[in-house]
């Protein structure tokens, strides 16, 4: 049943450009961010959050900008390989350092690294274009070049396929011994160490994966926006990814999708209708989720049923008392 629903969802989304062309841009943004959130989701399995994954997101976008400008519009597949290599390698280097820390230190050291990257991107104007960033030239796909309208569709399917592959990969990974060990880190590092596995190493491996996912997300984002800016690695952007992961729920990859859609929709609607109150609304939503539905959106149906039962029970009891 559940599997059927997921397949139905994938089919509908694969047909989205035909069904609802007006939402293609919105959906592409959702996919791009979702890739980064998948990375955060992976680390959350070990109970760790990174407030710095914006740096890999930015790495994806800037790679597209640099390679695109150097080669006069590179090929998407080439960019993909380059981004995997660059974000993976930088994830490994930073990961070797941050995987020694947990919780607040893990979160804030990631933040510090990303802010250092942010500062450099802003400061090295002649290399990075400073605050205004760099333009990302429109790439080709297998040598084919596109008009903007065609490219919207191309980048839609690119991000969509990346999301499907990424989700599938994470689903498999989390079932595997390595993924289960990640969950074990959260629960009992001592025991992990005493069955012969390094908790730091376990986190490092997941960290590199998460960096690559965020990098691919940033690539999709940069290609869609046609722009790479330092703001991509400002800490509030990274906070957004964590926010979405918690909003969706830690339990399930589908939660990541639900979280990203809801987040983007709230942000989009609030920005359009409510004259600058989207942060306020999202902040309240986040607190509500943490206090009321700690399992996130994915746990919302169960939580609602539970509340419903409680209310009915109370009504029942109240009714009996009146009698």
């Amino acid at each position, binding site marked *: 049943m559940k599997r059927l629903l997921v397949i139905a969802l994938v089919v509908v989304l694969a047909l989205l450009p035909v069904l609802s*062309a*007006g939402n293609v*841009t*919105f959906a592409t*943004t959702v996919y791009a961010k979702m890739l980064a959130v998948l990375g955060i989701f992976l680390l959350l399995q070990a109970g760790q959050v990174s407030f710095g994954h914006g740096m890999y997101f930015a790495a994806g976008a800037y790679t597209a900008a640099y390679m695109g400008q150097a080669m006069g519009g590179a090929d998407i597949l080439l960019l993909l390989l380059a981004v995997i290599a660059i974000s993976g390698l930088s994830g490994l280097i930073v990961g070797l350092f941050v995987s020694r820390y947990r919780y607040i230190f893990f979160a804030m050291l990631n933040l510090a690294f990303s802010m250092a990257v942010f500062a450099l991107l*802003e*400061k090295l*104007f*002649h290399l990075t*274009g*400073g*605050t*205004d*960033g760099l*333009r990302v030239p429109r790439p080709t796909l297998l040598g084919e070049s596109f*008009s*903007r*309208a*065609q490219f*919207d*569709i191309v980048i839609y399917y690119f991000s969509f396929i990346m999301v499907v592959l990424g989700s599938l990969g994470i689903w498999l990974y989390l079932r595997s011994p390595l993924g289960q060990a990640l969950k074990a880190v959260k629960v009992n590092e001592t025991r992990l160490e005493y069955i012969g596995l390094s908790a730091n190493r376990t986190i490092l491996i997941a960290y590199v994966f998460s960096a690559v996912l965020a990098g691919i997300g940033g690539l999709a*984002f940069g290609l869609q*926006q*046609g*722009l790479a*800016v330092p*703001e991509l690695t400002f800490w509030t952007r990274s906070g957004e990814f964590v926010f979405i992961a918690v909003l969706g729920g830690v339990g399930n990859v589908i939660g990541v999708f639900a979280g990203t859609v809801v987040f983007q929709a709230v942000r*989009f609607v609030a*920005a*359009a209708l409510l004259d*600058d109150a989207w942060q306020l609304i999202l902040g309240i939503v986040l607190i509500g989720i943490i206090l009321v539905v700690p399992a996130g959106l994915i746990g919302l149906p169960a939580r609602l049923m539970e509340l419903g039962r409680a209310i009915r029970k109370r009504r029942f009891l109240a009714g009996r008392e009146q009698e």
Partner: protein
Amino acid sequence: MSRLRMPLTAAALTALALPAAADTPDTIRVGITTFLSGPASVFGVPGRQAAEMLAEQINDRGGLQGVPVELFFVDEGTGMETLLSEYRRLVDTVDVDVMFSGISSGTCNNIAPLAEDLEILNFMWDCGTQRIFEEGDYQWVFRTQAHAAPEVLSTFLYLMDHAPDFETIAVVNQDYAWGRDSWAIFQAALETLRPDVEVVAELFPAFGAADFSTEISRLQVLRPDVVLSTSWGGDLDTFVRQANQRGLFNNSLFVLPLAESSLERLGFDLPEGVIVGARGDHYFLHPEFRDDDDFTGFMDAFKERTGDWPIYPVFHMAQAFAALEAAYDAAAEATGGFPDRVAVRDAMEGISFSGLGREVTIRDDNQGLEDQLLGVTRRADGFDFNIMDDMIIYPAADITTPVGQETLSWIRALDESFLEISGDRFSHED
């Protein structure tokens, strides 16, 4: 969107040969991107207020070719992500007839190719980067004001006129495209025309920096003859206040090409004797128009409505509306009916129009030619802030990069005769 655009493109191709009349719509929809949040809202908010006043005026006159204008605003301050999707929403869903976009150079760099792709008439109404038309050829994008080259070169000329003997200079610019680019232009002019001047410090504090203490200490040690800063908004205000507090204005001559927009806010914290510019001939006491009833009427109405005197974005907005009105009029004349969008675009080529200042002309490369006004701060009766005196208005044609040339290489090829451009002189008391 793709399917929507296809027939339109075909129509556009036939229309290129023959401008066509169209059915008269209910309204002419104008989308405007402007900063409503973030530091640049010091420009964006007055820009919006001006746009609303100007639209009311146009509609009171019966609209453009009998059709009222309707405005749709987008906040540039929410980041490029939201801006780009909002821009596309206005074009695709709201179906605007023209976009005014935008204030920041970053916006223009990204919007210009987008507008070209979407085939929507776009006026770059306030951004300063000179690169866009130098690096690309555009059919749908026009700039209804000057760009960085005339703005900076007029400052250079004014400085050479006002204090020709300076020997050292330091620059304190915001660390982003405008701060860097404007210094590159100024520096190129210095190296070409005053190679003897020594640049003692190039300081680029972060955009939005709240503290310039260390920079000011360093300037006190270096004591340059001239301190140049193209900063604006909160950054400029903070820098000026902190510099003034620590007596830096006594040591050096300050040159602030964007300070017209800070005059009223800074009050007497901006001392007398500072060279001030306005990114165009924009000044609420414009020496050629201050006796003009329409001009003063608008200035007073703006002050009445917002509490502040108009600053340069108000003038830039007026130019964008003046260009739109002129284009609709010219296109209607050419087509003999209400013009379609292609006809309006075609009418923009070479058009002249006047906003709240001297006439602006669109060149072959879609760049506007706009004269430049600078002055020196002075106290004057009736104002609780320093106003401009010893004003010079420089003619745009002489100080703007010629069509097809690249600004920095053009400047590097200038000779001494450039320094003889003198402009028209005015004083406050005249």
